């Protein structure tokens, strides 16, 4: 037990100034207090009923499970924070198989000294994202590590959902299928990089982080046949398409001029030496569907708030040696490589 630890670290009024203590992770009473005073109020109605295992009832036939770690630096960025990111990312992950998300569970690793108002803020935004997505945060856990052993806050998020109808699967992708994206490319990655270490990109880009499972489910409810979906987290559209093509053993040819990219993101990419398709989104999906369905899908998406910039960006062709290519207006084809990590870690 750390010296100087008292049984009551703060009063509700003091939350604004208090910080996470190492003892919040090890002292049962303090831990309970953190839950009652900070976590539960921040999560609100979608939060867990207790600080432990949740029990949910359902008649679902097929369950979907997903889990992801979130280590974004910095944890607060234009358009969102790590709380919203963890819930959105997990929900979107479930939706890639066509699952309706039901509940998520969050495991937080807090660095000693994290201001409690930051903790409260990120949890409130996690709660808002959960309400948007119509899911419950069924379970939550917190751990505290010494200063320097973590960078402010890391989140491990897991989610469950159920699948109505046939799960989406990259194996269903066929030559002639069309690739759509539901929003503009690269917003999240650029928003995060723009906050890094005194970098002044001179552009106002907000992260697109949002739960967009409703777009996938809504399309299916509207009668659009989807073959596969992939989120654009991590390595952006390029990584998503490489993943899908590897499973499907097909090739995708993108139309460079059709890619929806905000001018500010384009400028930032130009400065950083990146292509927009390498940069992550957290509220954007790549969808693969039969060409005959594409127009209806785009039309439906355009009527949704989070699908306003949806666009048809490419076509599936029979497998070539190159998995993903991008064709410019003159007809030249560039290889879109699988993004290799290293230069820009911790985007999500």
């Amino acid at each position, binding site marked *: 037990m750390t010296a100087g630890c008292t049984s009551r670290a703060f009063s509700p009024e003091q939350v604004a100034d208090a910080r996470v203590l190492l003892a919040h992770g090890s002292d049962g009473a303090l831990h309970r207090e953190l839950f009652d005073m900070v976590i539960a109020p921040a999560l609100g109605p979608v939060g867990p009923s207790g600080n432990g295992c949740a029990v949910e009832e359902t008649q679902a036939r097929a369950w979907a499970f997903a889990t992801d770690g979130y280590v974004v630096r910095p944890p607060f960025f234009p358009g969102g924070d790590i709380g919203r990111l963890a819930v959105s990312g997990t929900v979107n992950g479930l939706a890639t198989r066509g699952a309706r998300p039901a509940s998520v569970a969050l495991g937080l690793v807090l660095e000693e000294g994290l201001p409690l108002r930051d903790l409260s803020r990120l949890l409130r935004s996690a709660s808002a994202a959960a309400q948007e997505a119509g899911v419950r945060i069924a379970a939550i856990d917190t751990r505290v590590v010494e200063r320097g052993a973590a960078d402010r806050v890391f989140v491990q998020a897991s989610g469950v959902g159920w699948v109505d109808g046939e799960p989406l699967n990259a194996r269903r992708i066929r030559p002639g299928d069309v690739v759509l994206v539901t929003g503009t490319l690269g917003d999240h990655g650029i928003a995060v*990089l723009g906050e*890094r*270490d*005194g*970098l*002044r*990109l*001179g*552009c106002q880009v907000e992260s697109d982080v949002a739960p967009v499972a409703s777009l996938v489910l809504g399309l299916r409810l509207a009668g659009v046949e989807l073959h596969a979906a992939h989120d654009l987290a991590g390595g952006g559209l390029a990584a998503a398409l490489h993943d899908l093509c590897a499973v499907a053993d097909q090739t995708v040819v993108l139309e460079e001029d059709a890619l929806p990219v905000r001018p500010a993101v384009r*400028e930032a990419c*130009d*400065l*950083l*030496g*990146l292509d927009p398709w390498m940069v992550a989104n957290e509220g954007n999906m790549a969808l693969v569907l039969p060409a005959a369905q594409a127009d209806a899908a785009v039309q439906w998406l355009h009527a949704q708030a989070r699908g306003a910039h949806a666009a048809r960006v490419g076509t599936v062709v029979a497998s*070539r*040696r*190159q998995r993903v*290519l991008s064709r*410019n207006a*003159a*007809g*030249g*084809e*560039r*290889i879109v*490589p699988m993004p*290799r990590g*290293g*230069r*820009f870690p911790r985007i999500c």
Partner: protein
Amino acid sequence: MQNVKAAAPGGGRLRRRMLVKGLVQGVGFLPFTYRLAAELGLSGWVRNVNPGVLILVEGEPRTLDTFERRLTSELPAVARIDGLQADDRPARGPLGSFRVRRSRAWSEPAVPVAPDLATCPECAREIADPRDRRYRYPFTSCNVCGPRYTVVTQLPYERTGTTLSPFQPCARCQSECDDPQSRRFHSQTISCPECGPAFWIEPSPPPSPAHDVVAEVAELLLGGSIVAIKGLGGFHLTCLADDEQAVSVLRRRKRREGKPLPVMVADLDAAERLVHLTPTGRALLLDRAAPILLARKRVTSALAPSVAPDSPDCGLMLPHTPFHHLLLADVRRPLVMTSANLGGDAIVSCNEEARRRLSGLADYLVLHDRHIHVACDDSVTRLEAEGPVPVRRSRGYAPSPIVLKRDLPPILALGGLAKATVAVTCGRNVFVSQHLGDLRTGSAAEAFHHTVEHLLRLWDLRPELVAHDLDPSSLGSMVAHQFGGRAIGVQHHHAHMASVMAEHGVVEPVLGVCLDGSGFRSDDESWGGEFLLGDAVGFQRVASVPRFRLPGGEAGARYAWRTAVGLLWDLLGPEAAREWTGRVRSSQAERDAVLSMLESGVACTGTTSLGRMLDGFAAIVGLCDHSPVQVQAALRLERAAGAPRAIDTPSLPDPRQGGTEVVRAVLRRLLSDGRDPANAAALAAWTQAAISRWVALTATELAACHGIGQIVASGGCLFNPWLRSALRDAARAQRLTLLLNRFVPPGDGGLTLGQVYVASAVAEGTRR
């Protein structure tokens, strides 16, 4: 050469079996052998086999010796004998009158495939002669000219192993093939208007009095059209080179800004009217490889300004197919003849692809029905003081082998990223492929796979070693493990150095001076101004250009001013960088962003590239604006500087202070004098002199201090005349040997030869 000659008892008749290796197929060697044997009254036969040509002759020993001597001394100009094995035994009875037999596949596969050969003077005369049956026939060829590498599908070389196999020779062609006195005796590419392939135009041109396709194309061009013409190794985009309107439209459609467009002229006289030619230059234009020669434009040249807007030089070539000969004779004006490709893509070579991809670029497509099996861009050559140096080694040269001094294990070398080539080895031969383009484009990647498979299959090779660049994002690295052999990663600049060592057969340690734009070292670090001490097995980096960072990495280096900011920040400090950045005519936000990248270190990669450094200098001298550059900024500095000449030495920074101090001194002078555009040329020359002097002194001092007698210099910057002449002068003054590339480009097209040399040395080292 090994000769086992039995003593002939009593001077009796002998039967001599001769296996001739080298460039002996598809170059008229068989008919030559036939005529020689017939002339000497020898009996026997000759045939193509996989390793070369096999001859069996019987006759008096003296006659046989004469035959052998004249076989090696009088062989056709294009042919080359690399080895001749002969063994004698007593004559065993009549072999019958000498004849040419059908070729036969052997298990030992080593025969080189001939490169494509420009139309010979005899064939050119035939197509211009109204009395000849091949008058204006655009596929005329003979034993010493015509398509070879681009049409060969398998070995040994004969018609069924070429894309001419669907065209059955007519009776008259067949009788030429059978006639030992004919230039087309046993020709595999023989055809005529009756039986051969044909040209046509899509869409059909407007009706005209023109009597054949060539004349129709000439009229379209004279009318200002842009025409895509299928040639030997792919399509060219063609228009009148003296019509500014046509050239600028072509440039716009091809999205090619800045870079000179190659021009084809009818003959040497027409060439002389456009450019200055030396005797070597004239000889090179007439060479059977018919490369594009880079030559100095005449002030009075009739070329449209858009042909080579930024350059004092222009690329020129003479007709290399009958179609080109006829077209140039009809048009009587110079024609732009640029590869039909789009920004680094591989050249378009098949009809379907041309219809799909060139319809928007060209007004008309001129197609023919002889399939191009291997697409092959034009070769480009520059004349240096040492002689011709390939800038791009492709049509007319590929796949002629670079012959090394000793046998190599079977090696596949996969090359680099841009200006890619691949290579395979067989015995002492290194077969370096044609230019494949930028492997980051889909079509070049397809050409890469096709060429690797084709070359391995041609000679039935199973590579023991697979050499590739260390860059994990290069196509070669990604596929190196697919070929079964041992994969050996070769550092980019080590391969450059080894390419020169391979050409000159050097095995002892050398000092390698490797100067280029960039080569992979690690994800965050690229090299490009390296002094390497070592041999083919390994190296030690003993000096380099001072390191600085590129904001935005290699992609950011398209903007020379951003490179300049990185250079200033890391060598003169943030204040100098900020102050100069304030002068750049870019937005405040963009300038601030670039500075913040250097300040935070985010998205910056380190480099020791000489090319990038020269880019930065060019920007500070004021030779580049704030937009991305199509032509390398370093090239602008080189052009502004003019020809290398003596610069007042005391004004130059003392190279003994070391690279960092020299670069700092250059930057300080550029900052103080670089504002005045009137000063640019003098400043560019001074900068070139200062840097070249440092490079040359560093090279010679390092060689001296390590007791090395040979300096090896390679990399794309070796085309910079200032660097080249400084190295040459310094080596001469210090009595050191300076070795340079002669057969493969010093740029990335030559990497495969170096990779082969390193891989074989490494494998040998590990076996021992």
